[in-house]
Each structure stands twice: as C-alpha cells, then as structure tokens.
C-alpha cells in the first residue's frame, strides 16, 4: 500500500503541471493545408537560467519547413511545466503555423 502511494506521488510529481505564460496568433490564411510546427524548450533547476536564447531559432525552424512559401497564422504558445515545487521546471515555446505557397 505504502509503495503504491509513493509511486503515485512520484508519478504525479514527475508528470508536471503546465501553466500558460503567453499566447499570440497572427492572421490566419485561407489556405490551411500544410501545418508547420517548431518547438523549443529549456529545463531549469531552481531559477538558474542565464539567457532566453532557446527561442531565437523558432522563426528559422518554421521557415525551413516551408521553402519558397510563407508561414502564416502562427500561434505562439509559451508554457511553464512545473515538475516538483518549482525546484525543477521547464519552459516550452511552441509555434504552429500554415505554410502557404508563395
């Protein structure tokens, strides 16, 4: 019984609670056949995070998935995943858009 309880607590602690930090969306195009997605995240122990450069390449990652076209209707989602009492947490930025032929 005790082991099950410990395992349950451990699983809950490891799964992490997600909170939304910010969200933005650009104009959604008429043509929405091809979806492109880029994600970037950083695992942070305590609050020791010395830069936010992990978000720098999101735009380039999306562009590479749509050569010669345009990426429109981009939804940018910034989330914080809390693993255990904010001792460990990660920040995850996801950008999803539609590749439109240029």
């Amino acid at each position: 019984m005790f082991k099950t309880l410990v395992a349950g607590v451990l699983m809950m602690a490891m799964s992490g609670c997600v909170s939304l930090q910010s969200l933005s969306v650009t104009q959604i195009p008429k043509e929405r056949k091809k979806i492109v997605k880029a994600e970037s995240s950083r695992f942070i122990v305590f609050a020791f995070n010395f830069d936010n450069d992990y978000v720098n390449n999101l735009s380039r990652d999306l562009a590479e998935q749509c050569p010669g076209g345009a990426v429109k209707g981009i939804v940018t989602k910034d989330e914080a995943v809390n693993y255990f009492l904010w001792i460990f947490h990660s920040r995850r930025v996801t950008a999803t858009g539609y590749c439109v032929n240029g």
Partner: protein
Amino acid sequence: MRSILAGLGLILSLQGCAFLHHVQLGDIDNTAKGTPFEVKVSETGIDLQEAKNIGKALSRNAKNNKAMDDIAGAIALFQMGPRTGNLVYNPDYARNIGQMILAECPSGRITGITAIRESAKYPVISGEIVRIRGFCDRKG
C-alpha cells in the same frame, strides 16, 4: 569552504537570472532571402520589496523598519495593475523601437519577427528588456 561558497554565490548573483515574460512570432515570408538582425532596448528595474527586505535586515532599529514598511506600502498603492518584471522609472524606454528597427532595415521589408520581452534579474535591480529579432530584405 565558506569563501568558495561565497564566491560561487557572488558569481551566480552577478550573472543575473533571465526570465521570459512573453514571446511572439510574426508571419514569415520565405520567398525573399533576408539577413538576420536584432534590436534591443532595456531599462533598469527596481524590486522595492527586495530593497526593503535588505534594508530591514541591515537595520536593527525597529523605528526604521516600520518607516521602510510604510514607504514600501505607500509606493505599492500607486503601482497597481498587471505588469511584467520590475518597476521602471522611464515608461517610454521602448517607445523608439520602431525607429531602431527601421534603422537596422531601411528598406522596411521585414519578415519573421520574433518579439521577446524578458528580464535579467540581479539582487534588487533588474534589466527590463525588449528584444526584436527578424530578417531584413535589404534589396527591396
């Protein structure tokens, strides 16, 4: 051992922890080749709560501590509402960012804009930063 720990603490506190408040991507036009650019503005922010706590820790006079509480409370009354990061005393520090972008990209043909609002946190003070990254088609 103590001096090593103190040194480590000092190095970590001087590094400044980075907090991301907001990130936003703009539409990307991949038909033209653009060169990357970045503009950045920042302003010093002050954590009054932290300043008050340090002041109280340094002062053993109960009267001074009470006065610090009163001052912090009075300032807090005028600082209500949602905000990101610490208080800054120049609310216009990001006002000219549009002109700065145009200076970097005089053609005005900009694509793939990433707008980042972040803070670099040090003891008591912080850097309240706005960063704009994008790609400029200089031929246009």
